[in-house]
Structures are given as structure tokens and as C-alpha cells.
């Protein structure tokens, strides 16, 4: 299957994911590009493979993760620091190898400091933030090199939330895995459930009815709306404009309640496999129209606050070239003129008038505008889907053999899932959250901006920690 997003000005392949599989005798490294999938072997005794880092900067985290998971060394790489294995991790434990027991109890080892990327020079200093942040936010570490207020460089260090989910799911059927998969990232539960359900349908060679796709589409777009409203409130709030948060957080709450009314859960956890609740088509359409009015009011109001746009315009620019070089996805890519939205490739969406939204300035303002445009479009889509949606349920399969993959456009961007099944049980589970790519490109938006704008830039990208860390 070919995926979009290569861009005309840059004809090289887009790196979507790179991961390894334990084949017993050897390790296999799988690389998913937009146009093809390649497979390499690495010897078990002395596992090595050539690095893609020099050509694909986003290969950095993929390869460091593989090195931690399997103990494979990448030749020609420029970064050999551990990624998942933090300061007190007992060296030599590679959990994704088949001979590593998921229940093994690890002892905390001696503290080994992590060498952060830092810029040197007269008067340049470092600011360390996290893992526990000031607000109610997920844990992660940001390391800044500062010249006064100006950021020279920033390193993102994550995987504090590393729960070992890939390993946890091995040996489970898709049906058994579903409740865990729904809780990888609360931000993208519907998207992740749909990714798993599409794989389940492929296993059973079942076509998903349009009525069922319409129901899932409603939930996926509601998840996006809840998310975009939250961001549309928090972005101005980080620029000191709290009134926007008061307004937008109330709309986000109303969207969560809509999800609850349709699925019995405010985040739609386990919604796909649950018996759908009785719902009122007309009521949902009325709700969408009302919410569209609210969005219109918000847009007119917020567009007219010059001091806010003064903070958002030209802040945290991601150039189109950089977005392509890193293979960025989601709103982050689309705000930098990269035409990439999984929904554009889905006939179901295309036939119902879906149009991807884009901006070109690549700054906080562009990402804000793309979110607002998408929110309004999602409401139109739900109105269309509501006319077709059924109350069908869905059962995840207990069987299956072979390798499968799926893509879903979550509220954060392109979500990629790959699963290998042996005798109905998962032998390898891999999911690449959109944030896994976008986090790596975040530092490109910092130079030339002041550190006080970091929260604004970070929020405008809205990245997941839980989905990223797994």
C-alpha cells in the first residue's frame, strides 16, 4: 500500500517506522517507508545493522529504541545513548528478546548520568525541566541551552512512562489485547481501537460495513473535537489569555459528555467492543449544528485579539523542508504545507466530502488555525456520518495467522500499527504514535524563540507522552 506525504519538492521516501522482531536464530529489522517495507537480518550473537540516522534524522529514536529492546548496534549512527533505559536501568537487559520474561523483576542499578545534548560557549547556560512539570501534565524531560532568554537548543528526553506494553501484549489474542490497547493513550483511545479493529477485520477477511465505519467515524471525529477544543483553549492560555481556556474547556467538556452519551464512557474506552447504546440521530445532528455555531463565535472573537496573535505569529516555526526531512505527521505537518492526512486516502472519508486542512507559515498561529478549521470540518463530517451510522457492535477476533498493519488519522496525526499473529496470539505488537516522530522535530522550532514561548510552541504541537513511551 502506498502512503501519501512524500511531497513533490522532495522525492525521497518517508520513514514511517523502524522496529525489530526476534526470529530465534536472528533478529529481523523491519523498516516501513511510505512506498515500501524493507527487512534486514541481524546476527543473534553479535547483532549489528547499518544506521539510517545520517539520512533520516527521525531514525534516531527508532534505532535507539531497538538497541535498548534487543541489544542491536547500529553502525554509522551518531547517537548511541540509551533511550528507554534510564539512569538506574540494569545494563544488559533487553526486554523484547523472546528469552526475557515479561514478569522478570529488575533491580535498580547504580545511577549512571545521561549525557544531555548541550551547546557550550561563554554565558550559555542549561535549563533542565521535568520529568515532573509544574502543571497537570504527563512526565517528560526538556533540556534547554540558553543564551539569556533565547533558546539555542532543546533536547526532548522521554520514556518515563515506559510500561512495556509491546511485551505485555505478547501471547494475548486481539480480543484480550483490546482493553489494554484502548488505554495506551487516553488522548487517542478511539483511534488506537480503530487501528486494532481494522487489523482484526483483515485477519477475518471481513469488510467493514459503511454503517459501522460511519459509527467509528463519529467517535473518531468527536475525539478529535474534544482534543482540538482543549488545545484551542490551552494555546492562548499559555500566552496569558485565560478567557479562551474558560470558553474552550467548556466546549471540550460538552464533547466528552457527547462521547459518554454515545458510548457510556467520556473517553470512549472499549467503545468499539461494547454494545452500542441507543442514540438519537437527530439529537446528534442538532448538537453538531450548535457546536458549529460555538466554533464560529469563538473564531470571530479570537481572531479579533491582536495581542494574542502577536504571541502566536512567527513563533516556533517548523519549515516545510524540516517537516519533510523528519517525516512529521498530523497537524504539525499540515501547518507546514505538508499534505498528509490518512483520511485523504480513505474512500469512506473522501466520498463524504473530506478535505484536508492546511496552512503554510508553520508557526504556532498556523497550527492553531489548522486545529480550528479541522474542528469545524469534523462537525460537518459527523453530521454526514450520523445519517448512515448503525448501532452494530464489533467483536475482536480470537484467531489469526500472519503479519498485519493499519493506519488511522488520530487527533495527533498518522497512527501506525503492525501486529504479527501466531495461532491467534500476538507474537509481536508494534504501534508508532504520531508523537514519536513529531517529538523528535520539536527542537527545530526553538532556536530564535524565548524560553517563555516554549510552553506555547509545545502545546501548539500537542504531543502525547503515554502513546510515545508505551
Amino acid at each position, binding site marked *: 500500500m502506498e502512503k501519501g506525504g512524500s511531497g513533490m519538492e522532495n522525492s525521497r521516501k518517508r520513514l514511517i517506522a523502524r522496529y525489530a522482531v526476534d526470529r530465534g536464530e536472528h533478529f529481523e529489522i523491519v523498516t516501513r517507508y511510505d512506498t515500501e517495507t524493507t527487512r534486514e537480518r541481524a546476527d543473534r550473537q553479535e547483532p549489528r545493522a547499518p544506521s539510517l540516522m545520517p539520512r533520516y534524522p527521525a531514525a534516531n529514536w527508532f534505532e535507539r529504541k531497538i538497541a535498548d529492546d534487543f541489544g542491536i548496534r547500529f553502525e554509522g549512527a551518531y547517537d548511541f545513548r540509551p533511550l528507554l533505559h534510564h539512569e538506574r536501568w540494569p545494563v544488559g537487559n533487553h*526486554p523484547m528478546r523472546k528469552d526475557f*520474561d515479561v514478569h522478570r523483576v529488575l533491580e*535498580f542499578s547504580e545511577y549512571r548520568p545521561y549525557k544531555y545534548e548541550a551547546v557550550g560557549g561563554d554565558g550559555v547556560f542549561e535549563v533542565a525541566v521535568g520529568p515532573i512539570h509544574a502543571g497537570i501534565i504527563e*512526565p517528560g524531560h526538556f533540556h534547554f541551552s540558553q543564551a539569556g532568554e533565547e533558546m539555542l537548543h532543546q533536547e526532548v528526553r522521554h520514556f518515563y512512562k515506559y*510500561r*512495556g506494553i509491546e511485551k505485555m501484549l505478547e501471547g494475548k489474542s486481539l480480543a484480550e489485547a483490546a482493553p*489494554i490497547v484502548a488505554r495506551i493513550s487516553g488522548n487517542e483511545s478511539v483511534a488506537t481501537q480503530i487501528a486494532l479493529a481494522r487489523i482484526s477485520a483483515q485477519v477475518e477477511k471481513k469488510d467493514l460495513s459503511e454503517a459501522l465505519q460511519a459509527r467509528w467515524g463519529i467517535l473518531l471525529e468527536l475525539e478529535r473535537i474534544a482534543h482540538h477544543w482543549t488545545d484551542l483553549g490551552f494555546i492562548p492560555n499559555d500566552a496569558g489569555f485565560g478567557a479562551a481556556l474558560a470558553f474552550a*474547556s467548556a466546549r471540550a*467538556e460538552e464533547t466528552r459528555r457527547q462521547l459518554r452519551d454515545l458510548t457510556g464512557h467520556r*473517553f470512549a474506552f472499549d467503545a468499539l467492543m461494547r454494545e452500542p447504546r441507543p442514540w438519537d440521530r437527530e439529537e446528534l445532528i442538532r448538537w453538531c449544528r450548535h457546536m458549529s455555531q460555538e466554533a464560529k463565535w469563538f473564531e470571530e472573537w479570537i481572531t479579533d485579539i491582536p495581542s494574542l496573535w502577536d504571541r502566536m505569529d512567527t513563533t516556533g516555526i517548523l519549515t516545510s523542508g524540516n517537516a519533510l526531512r523528519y517525516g512529521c505527521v498530523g497537524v504539525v505537518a499540515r501547518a507546514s504545507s505538508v499534505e498528509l492526512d490518512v483520511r485523504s486516502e480513505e474512500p469512506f472519508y473522501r466520498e463524504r466530502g473530506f478535505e484536508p486542512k492546511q496552512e503554510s507559515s508553520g508557526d504556532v498561529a498556523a497550527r492553531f488555525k489548522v486545529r480550528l478549521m479541522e474542528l469545524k470540518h469534523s462537525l460537518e463530517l459527523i453530521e454526514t456520518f450520523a445519517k448512515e451510522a448503525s448501532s452494530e457492535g464489533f467483536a475482536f477476533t480470537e484467531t489469526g495467522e500472519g503479519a498485519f498493519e493499519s493506519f488511522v488519522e488520530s487527533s495527533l496525526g498518522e497512527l501506525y500499527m503492525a501486529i504479527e499473529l501466531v495461532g491467534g496470539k500476538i507474537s509481536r505488537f508494534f504501534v508508532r504514535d504520531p508523537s514519536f516522530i513529531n517529538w523528535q522535530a520539536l527542537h527545530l522550532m526553538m532556536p530564535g524563540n524565548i524560553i517563555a514561548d516554549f510552553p506555547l510552541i509545545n502545546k501548539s504541537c500537542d504531543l502525547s507522552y503515554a502513546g510515545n513511551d508505551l
Partner: protein
Amino acid sequence: MLRYWQRRFKTGILTEKPEFDARMKELRKRLKKGIAKHFAGSLAIRMVDSGSCNACEAECNALSNPYYDLERLGIRFVASPRHADVMLLSGVLTFNMLPHVLDAWEQIPEPKWCITLGDCPAMQAPFTRTFAIQAPAAEHLPVAHHIPGCPPSPNTIIEGLLEFLETLQNGKQGTGN
């Protein structure tokens, strides 16, 4: 901005559950001595995520939206553990977060309480325990109260916090250490 104030005037107050205010008022009366002693009149919470899916955090953020407006009850989230009375702990306590969680706990001045939030820290979420998970939290911290749910809704969280305050009033809970 005029447009905003017009709208604000027309919308009125969205905040629900006036019964929470009444309950808090009653609690304050009864707890007058205790609250004054422990919390200087209000409860300060430091939320620590030790490896959640972010839904518990989203619901805690929702507590500040106009429908819940938690701060009206004198309960607020603070930026530093050093300003806190309570550590509200979500997540499965990952191997990578445990040392930082214990650091944060140490930074909270006495008297202090640990409240676990959601099914994860009690290891009741669908997750199975792995090498990377150190939950249940009670093995590492003196947990004074638990708010169940996956995630607990904003109203459940408020209920849970009020219940915690009531247990203090009944004298059932000592401090963390």
C-alpha cells in the same frame, strides 16, 4: 473583548453540583480546627503522573473548566510538591518514574497524605504487571485514600477528595509517615 463579556453575561454560571459547596461548607465548620491546623484553610494538591494514559490528567484538568470549578471549594492544584499537602498519584508507577515519585513525595512538607487516583496505581486497570511496572503504589508509599475509576470522572474525583477530608475529620487517618 466586549463580545466576550456580552456572551459571559448571557451564559451566566455553568458550574454544576451546588451540593458540593454545601457539603464543603458543612465540612469546613466541623473541620475548622483540623483544616486550620493541617491545611491553612485550603487543600493544596500536587498531581504526579507515574505512568498513566493521560486520561486521569485530562479529568483533573477538566476540574478547572466552568462546569466543575474545583477551586471554589478551596481545593487547588499547585506547581511544586513543596507547596502541597497531598500527592495525587496516577499511573502504574513505572520503573523509570518510581525514583522521581519518591523524590517528589520527600519534598512535600509534613503533614502530608498520598491519594491514589484511578485504577492504575492500585494495579486494577487492564494492564498486567511487567518488568517496567512497579504498582501497586501501596508497596512504596503510605496511601491514605484511593479514588477508583478508569478514569474517575471529574465528579468522582471531587467526591473522592471530599471523602478523604471527611476521613480526616473522623480521625481515621494519620499523616503519611
